[in-house]
């Protein structure tokens, strides 16, 4: 992997507080803050569910924060993100305010889509979040279309599409990979392998051990399996994938190993998991790993506690703002079915 020039060599004349390698202090603190933000916002979403302030369903990324943070930290403005229905994390990671995300989950007027989309369809075009897609695999071809536009317009942006391990067994996954390779599209496919496709161990229903990476060779792509709980690893892998895409050298498929701490959705207590599995993975909690990483580079507990407190205040303030916000206006019920703003299908 090509190393980027160190931040210290470029700027700092005095000894930095944190060792500067290819990632550097500022980027690591950004990734830490993102991971804490996702952790606390997701935990809050869970709490609000128990208070019946969030209805329907939600799919949390607790335990998977490092992938969202590592990928987003490697992206630049203009790059596009396509999420799954487990998309709160990726939406937050692109800088969408916590309040707008929680507001959407709660069906409030301050929600990202004012309650018209809900948890599974978070979208913020101004942040490059081109939508969250709730039909397995549907958005992989759509991401190819976004990348095709970038290629055709010579826009230079890269499209990232996230999906779970279960998606690798649906046709759209295979159609999209083939399509992206033959058209050499600037798209990065990120499989978040959290071992379970909904309630079933994905390995029990998949022909190969690594459901994404072991299929890569079928499309002439390298086999890439990474530790998805280590944001640094994710960030470095993405740096390479984005460079390849921006150079016009086509797509990358990455399988990031991780584990969700909660069930598939709100309805799932995840009783199918063998005893001890969750505990074992919690020892590899992305936040634990990252706190150790930061410490090893000289970041103090106090510095991290300050970030934790800042984030908690943001999430608390967002929660209060959402509780105080009016429920979504019924005026929007019939708006934006068609581009003229309305819903008329006849004269």
């Amino acid at each position, binding site marked *: 992997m090509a190393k980027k020039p160190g931040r210290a060599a470029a700027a700092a004349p005095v000894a930095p507080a944190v060792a500067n390698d290819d990632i550097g202090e500022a980027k690591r603190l950004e990734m830490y803050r993102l991971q804490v933000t996702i952790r606390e916002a997701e935990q809050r979403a869970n709490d609000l569910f128990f208070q019946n302030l969030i209805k329907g369903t939600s799919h949390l990324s607790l335990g998977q924060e490092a992938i969202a943070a590592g990928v987003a930290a490697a992206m630049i403005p203009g790059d596009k993100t*396509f999420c799954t229905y487990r998309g709160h994390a990726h939406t937050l990671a692109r800088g969408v305010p916590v309040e707008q995300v929680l507001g959407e989950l709660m069906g409030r007027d301050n929600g990202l889509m004012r309650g018209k989309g809900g948890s599974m369809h978070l979208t913020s075009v101004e942040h490059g979040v081109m939508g969250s897609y709730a039909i397995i695999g549907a958005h992989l071809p*759509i991401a190819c279309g976004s990348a095709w536009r970038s290629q055709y317009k010579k826009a230079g942006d890269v499209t990232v599409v996230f999906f779970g391990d279960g998606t690798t067994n649906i046709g759209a996954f295979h159609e999209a990979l083939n399509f992206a390779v033959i058209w050499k599209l600037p798209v990065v496919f990120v499989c978040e392998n959290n071992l379970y496709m909904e309630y079933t161990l994905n390995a029990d229903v998949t022909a190969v051990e690594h459901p994404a990476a072991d299929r890569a060779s079928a499309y002439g792509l390298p086999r890439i399996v990474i530790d998805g709980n280590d944001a640094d690893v994710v960030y470095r892998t993405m740096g390479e994938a984005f460079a390849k895409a921006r150079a016009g050298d086509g797509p990358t498929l990455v399988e990031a190993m991780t584990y969700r701490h909660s069930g598939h959705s709100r309805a799932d207590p995840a009783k199918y998991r063998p005893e001890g599995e969750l505990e074992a993975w919690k020892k590899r909690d992305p936040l634990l790993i990252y706190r150790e990483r930061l410490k090893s580079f000289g970041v103090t507990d106090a510095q991290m506690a300050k970030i934790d407190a800042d984030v908690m205040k943001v999430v608390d303030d967002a929660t209060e703002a959402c509780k105080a916000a009016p429920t979504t206006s019924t005026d929007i019920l019939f708006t934006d079915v068609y581009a003229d703003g309305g819903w008329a299908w006849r004269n």
Partner: protein
Amino acid sequence: MAELTYRDAVARGIAQEMERDEDVVFLGEDVAAAGGVFKATVGLLEQFGPLRVRDTPISEQAILGAAMGAAMTGLKPIAEIMFADFLAVCYDYVANEIPKARYMTNGQVGCPLVIRFGGGGGLRFGAQHSQCVENWVMQFPGLKVVSPSSPIDVVGLMAAAVRDPDPVMFLEHKGLYATKGEVPDGEIVDTLGTAKILRPGTDCTIVALGLMVHRALAAAERLAAEFGISCEVVDVRSLVPLDTQTILGSVARTGRVFTVEENPRVLGWGAEIVSIIADEAFYDLDGPPVRITSPHIPLPAADLLEDMVIPSVDRVIETIRRSMSA
């Protein structure tokens, strides 16, 4: 003014729009080098090059998905699904993704694209390559649906579809590709959501679409000559938005209405139109609305059998004659 086939009008319509707007791109199976399996897109690759006219693998989900992703980020794609029947293998995009994107995102995302496909029977292709799928596509809020019956309408409605900011399903009838019609020179732009009265009449209204428009016109000719029944023929052209005013206006004048639908009976577009007439023009009616449709069976392949399924000129004449004399 030149005489064009319906097939050549497709290429003419697409070319007119690609020439006007560099963001218009075209993709599909066998559409570029081969010029389309129905030869409806011959010459586009040569005129606009391989970056804008692209052959795809046999991956209908990738075709519609890519069209959607390109449309929502700034291009205006035209995607071909070779046979209308194949919409079933990429139906998620038709049903769940493309039509709902704007609403679910509270207006953040639009999908200005055209999905064109060859539908309809009469070519002895059997049950999976002959269907009229209007009712597959007109049920989703967010989509627009048009189906031209003549070369000039192909060009004009294609232009309107490409320029429209909403996703448009563009049904071409395979049985019409070889038919010819006059098409004026120069730019032609039609209007979505407009029906056309192709033949004025006083005794009854025949509402038809696609290939059935031609059968309705032929039936009207003979009904007038042989039975003295004066039929007004309305070409629906646009199912969504639906020009109900033209249809209701015609029914108000004639007092009787017949729909001629190629699709199998249940939930055909005619049912929606008849329901609107029943709600809004009931007291204009002098007799029951009648739907002339294919029976609710899959299409058989053999010519003898297929001809018994799709409404024929004779069946239209016989049904109207009997209803009008009852």
